[in-house]
């Protein structure tokens, strides 16, 4: 069946069964492969997107519940927090393989939108849902603090 989703400001009509998680519609139907598949059970955060201003794990978000909502992915995310995070990520060379980093960045942007000057505990809380097997955690922590500093 057809469902219309608003992604990165554009409407897309997709033909997929309503229980299909957003992740597979993004990746397989729309070619928005920046949102990654890591676990499929909301445990690793690689598929983190923004839905109506909050982080969501796309791998467990059936499209049936997303009609009319504002969905933002790594390809479309923008704003001062997104700019600051991307700049800090580049400056510190945070990513290694990069596979988890779209999710990390989406989580970090939301963290900074909510906490302008996050403490270590805030970072633990905001980022512990995103696994990085390459072990970039120390650099992510540093980059979030740097982005917070840049945002002022």
């Amino acid at each position: 069946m057809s469902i219309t989703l608003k992604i990165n400001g554009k409407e897309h009509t997709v033909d997929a069964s309503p229980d299909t998680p957003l992740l597979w519609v993004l990746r397989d139907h729309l070619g928005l492969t920046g949102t990654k598949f890591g676990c499929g059970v909301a445990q690793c955060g690689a598929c983190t997107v923004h839905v109506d201003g909050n982080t969501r794990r796309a791998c467990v978000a059936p499209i049936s519940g997303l009609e009319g909502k504002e969905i933002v992915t790594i390809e479309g995310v923008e704003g001062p927090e997104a700019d600051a995070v991307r700049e800090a990520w580049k400056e510190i060379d945070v990513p290694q393989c990069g596979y988890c980093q779209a999710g990390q960045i989406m989580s970090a942007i939301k963290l900074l939108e909510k906490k302008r000057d996050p403490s270590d505990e805030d970072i633990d809380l905001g980022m512990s849902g995103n696994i990085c097997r390459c072990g970039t955690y120390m650099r992510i922590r540093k980059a979030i603090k740097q982005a917070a500093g840049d945002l002022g």
Partner: protein
Amino acid sequence: MSHEQPLVGQELDPGLTRQARELILNLSDNLNRATASRRGFLKGSSAFVLGLFLLSGKTAQAAGATELTAKVADLETFQGGDATPHLFIQIQPDETIQIVCHLSEMGQQVWTAVAQVLIDELDAPWENVRIEQAEGHPRFGNQNTDGSRSIRYNFERLRWMGAAMRAMLEEAAAQTWKVPKKECKGALGHVTHVPSGKKLSYGALAERAREMKVPPRKAITLKKREEWRQINKPVKSLTTPSIIRGEGEFGQDVRVEGMVYAVIARPPQLFGKIKSVDDKRALEVPGVIRTVRLPDLEPPAAFKPLGGVAVIAKDTWAAIKGREALEITWEDGPNANYDSAAFEKTLMEEVRKPGTTRLKRGDVNAALDAATKRVKADYYMPHQAHSAMEPPAVMARWDGDRVTCRGCSQAPQSARRNVASVCGIPEDNVTLEVTWLGGGFGRKSKGDHFAEAALIAREVGAPVKVVWTREDATRHSYYHTVSAQHLEGALDDKGKCTAFLHRTAFPTIAATFTYGQNEPRWGDLRQGATDTPFAVANMQVESGKADAHVRIGWMRSVANIYHAFAVQSFASELAHAAGRDPLEFLLELIGPPRLFDPNKEGAEYDNYGSPMEDYPIDTGRLAGVVKEAAKLAGWGRTLPEGHGLGVAVHRSFVSYVATVIEVAVDADGKLTIPGVWSAIDAGTVVNTNHVKAQVEGGTIFGLSNALYGEITAENGAIVQSNFPDWRVMRMNEAPRAMEVSIIPSTAPPGGVGEPPTPPAAPALTNAIFAATGIRIRRLPVFDASRRDRLVKKEQNR
């Protein structure tokens, strides 16, 4: 031949030999594909042709390929591959330096490192570099991206290539100006005629330079170290700008026109078979197209598909749902009785018995008998899974009897051979395209996922992407082996170690390739057993037997992980028994600066494929990293209540890493890691920032496995499946801070990706001991008996 189609849009010179034509076709095909991939794998569209045109005119391709066949003096083969510069570097008229990277990018920043070395010797501006991934093909030399060897094996070769191309540009300028070549100097993208100050850009000279003969090595001058602009500098990653925008293509991301998706229900046991399968309900799932049965796996496992049933669907979700609806009855195979709890007992019994002697110095037994104090300890580490964030994925597409596979591979040449062998076609009929890897850690060196995709796509008759789910990756890995070790040491009346016995038993990786192999090979033992360079008069290394019941494979630093865990834990245990400071005791064990060669004491030692004369086992360098890490950590400072410092050091992949960890354990037994300090001596390093990143990441990998990693089997099947029951380190559990020091060195480059991992586990458990008095000899630290709390057993009661 299908790719004799509109190649460069122009006819090939009919005078070329067949071999040259093929090389041209292959080379341009490869470059075209690389460009196309950045544009989302466009095929046959005008954008494809455009990319082709931008990348390479006919002249460039033809010149490059002709040189390949021209038997160029001593640049022909060098450090394991062709060193002809045209293979890796193309200079465009617009000054773009197009580089082909033959090694797989999996986060170790090999794209950046390869470009740094080539660009430095070529002496071109960094901003002009563009980089593409090579396909898997023998012409690139060894493309195996594991064993921490990318820079170790390619550094000199890449330097020669860059310098050779600079010499050709200088020659082209000399001919243009009709002046002697020695008056022409290439630097920062221009050749200057030094006496007159005349300049021509590399782009302007490129076409003429293509006609120049590749100079022999003796005619090439490499830059002096102090002239390096890129090498040994913290150059920024070439991949990060794409990653932060969700761009770049991983194996899981591959999409081609008309592609369908597959997931596979594989036998829970290795060599288990299908008794019966009913796919009726699976075929009723909306989006499911059909099922494909894979051949049963016969020993040895090697890189062959595991067997099972694939569900083909229009998207991944439908394939997953279809797989859930399959009704399969499995038939037990020879590993049906494999049970980790029972096997642990067997392995511990084995390692407590005398084994086969693999290295001998003095008389260990006599010295143990004569000891003032005799210390014994047994160590155990369970299976681990690599668990790269990207589960394996490959797209395969057939065209007649030829197949193109595109996916994540650390060893694309091996994957290509494997596809050919499993499909029964000539190797030349396989095109093996490499994407970025969302982590590898050794898992993606094994090309079973490529063979699966090729078999399924042939059956389906359409392009198929085989997607491994997290559960698949956890349950069907090539597991890091389970291991047991028994150590004994003798202390004299001054608290000095006079005897050191190290006995190790584990199912060997060799069993994956030789069915029934149950004894470690020299290649397993050289990783932290036979190469322990302790200054102890009586030393013995022994190995025991163990059968493999799952696919055993290499994982980041391999046998070094468990060997370093035991040896470095035991060093600390001996220090404690002697009532001495662990750091001071460790430095005494390492002893005075000297070179150690295990080959002279009964072991067969291949030094990770690097010559001993260039890369000796140097105890001075080993002690050097220990001292540096201890200095960074402030060893000896007064620590807060509940804190402890632990130290460990290890040489692997011909590099030296020492790590000091500070742990804090609160009154409830909750563990945190306030700080980690590491020193690495990897000889000459290419990128100082990325080497530090590898030390950080390799340490986290080691800590994650040591704290939480445990893969177990019951009735031959792996119990764990996904992150809830297979646990890896998260942000809130990671060290708050980590500092890395790179020892300045002019030694040839050693490995970097793996050496940081082995010291992590023993530094951690030594720190836990210092903080709590609890000695962890069985990993993981937080196994089922301990959950998340470090509380002494007696306190528990």
